[in-house]
């Protein structure tokens, strides 16, 4: 089976035999990759029971909890990594959650779809409509994405809160990096992934 490329990137940042907490784990794919590739011990956290069922079917440890109400079930510094893959935009209070992730994990990994991508900008500029793009496919009235941001927004957010970014990866819609993405990440980057300690 082909794994999601953005998850493979996250996997490449994770050291073997560590502990990982994956928030919004879906069907448990990231944890599955990490077990296969790095023999980690990990748990996925999900709110959706259908995803819980799939994770259990995938033999992944999964805990049904609502990350919007914090990570109080987890002790401080109890995981080597806490990951939030492409879910930052759906949480109610991103700052609270990131603070909680930093409390629970020694290192955190956050990725999100970049609202500054040219396709979103064009949508709004030319059509005057809320962007509906490959990475953000929902109409404004039924989108789960309530806290969308651009890469620039996120960098300012990290600076304001003294989050120390130690690694960054920006990729295009094909989950690759190229010259354009490197020169104008906020314009050509589709997905941004950050490692923060």
């Amino acid at each position, binding site marked *: 089976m082909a794994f999601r490329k953005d998850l493979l990137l996250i996997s490449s940042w994770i050291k073997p035999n560590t502990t990982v907490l994956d928030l919004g784990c879906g069907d448990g794919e990231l944890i599955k990759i990490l077990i296969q590739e790095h023999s980690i011990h990990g748990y996925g956290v999900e709110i959706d029971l259908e995803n*819980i069922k799939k*994770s259990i079917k995938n033999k992944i440890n999964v*805990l049904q909890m609502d990350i919007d109400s914090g990570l109080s*079930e987890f002790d401080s510094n109890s995981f080597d990594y806490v990951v939030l893959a492409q879910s930052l935009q759906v949480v109610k209070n991103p700052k609270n959650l990131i603070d909680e992730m930093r409390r629970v994990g020694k290192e955190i990994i956050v990725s999100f779809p970049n609202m500054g991508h040219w396709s979103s900008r064009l949508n709004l500029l030319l059509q005057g409509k809320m962007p509906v793009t490959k990475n953000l496919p929902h109409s404004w009235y039924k989108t789960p994405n309530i806290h969308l941001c651009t890469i620039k927004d996120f960098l300012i957010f990290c600076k304001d809160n003294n989050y120390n970014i130690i690694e960054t990866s920006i990729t295009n819609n094909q989950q690759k990096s190229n010259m354009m993405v490197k020169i104008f990440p906020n314009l050509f980057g589709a997905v941004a992934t950050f490692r923060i300690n």
Partner: protein
Amino acid sequence: MDNSVGTVKPKIMKSNSPLKLISGKELGTVEIVYETYGELNREKSNAILICHALSGNHHAAGYHENDEKPGWWDNMIGPKKPIDTEKFFVVSPNNIGGCHGSTGPKSINPKTNKFFGSDFPIVTVNDWVNSQKILMDCLEIPAWKFVVGGSLGGMQSFQWAIQFPKKIKNAIIIAAAPKLTAQNIAFNEVARQAIMKDPNWKDGKYMEHATAPNQGLALARMLGHITYLSDESMGEKFGRELKKSKLDFNFDVEFQIESYLRYQGEKFAPNFDANTYLLMTKALDYFDPVKDYGDTLFQKIKASNTNFLVLSFTSDWRFPPIRSKEIVRLLMNCKKNISYAEIKSGGGHDAFLMENHDYFEVMSNFLSEN
């Protein structure tokens, strides 16, 4: 009968070696009545132990001859059901101290040749696991593939993982808690008082007097029953509905809920035993492995390879989700493989006995993948 294990007959295991209890007392001989469903495979690797709750017994699935109602967990256990008897060999015992055939207060005390009655020693969850281990050895089962239980049964499943970590591959702990709260114990105490204040209690020797404290036992059951249901489910089922069209301004049964509770109590009491009820509630009250084992609990659990599934139900207020999460947290801190799901249900604590698509699918997935 579709998807049923069909007609079943209980079996009896007799052990003549004494069973030492946590209290320091001893049972000279032990009899355990149990049922089995499905076949043990050649590798002896497909055995599931079912642990029953407070008022349960060994008759979990199928039908006894001439019975119209199946066992208490028939919706869960059977061919193509979550606990699939085409794949698994299911063992369902009645706990010692019970009143359905295993050594208990209704048995004859060999020392006195009289009924044990209230002389039956207090048994703990730990003792039950020890007695279930005797049954396991007797059936020549090297290890349980799964130990499954709800409520007090879930506590036994948890206890198995602590007590015999090498003998249990997977534990399913449903609607349980790592220990009772003061409120839980308070409910149990009222139930016990109801029994012991019954004029037919006779210091627990009622069988010698050919009577039984059935009024008290029925009251205990009524109280228990309220805590097994949710406000929501009671409201839906009965609301403020009256038996007659208008109020009578007296103390007879007027509301439907009163009638229902009385019926539940009256139906329960003649088929149960008051001493057993006391014993079961005590076992609940005493259960507290974190305190019992102290720091060694973590070592014990860490040393095990058991995978865990913990389930709770949203409307359960006897052992609400927050209590199950205490178990989850403990196991997570021991770096165990554990999954946890909170099933939406209006059924209250009793939801673990009810058919529910989500609940059953989660169970099926865990049972088929581990």
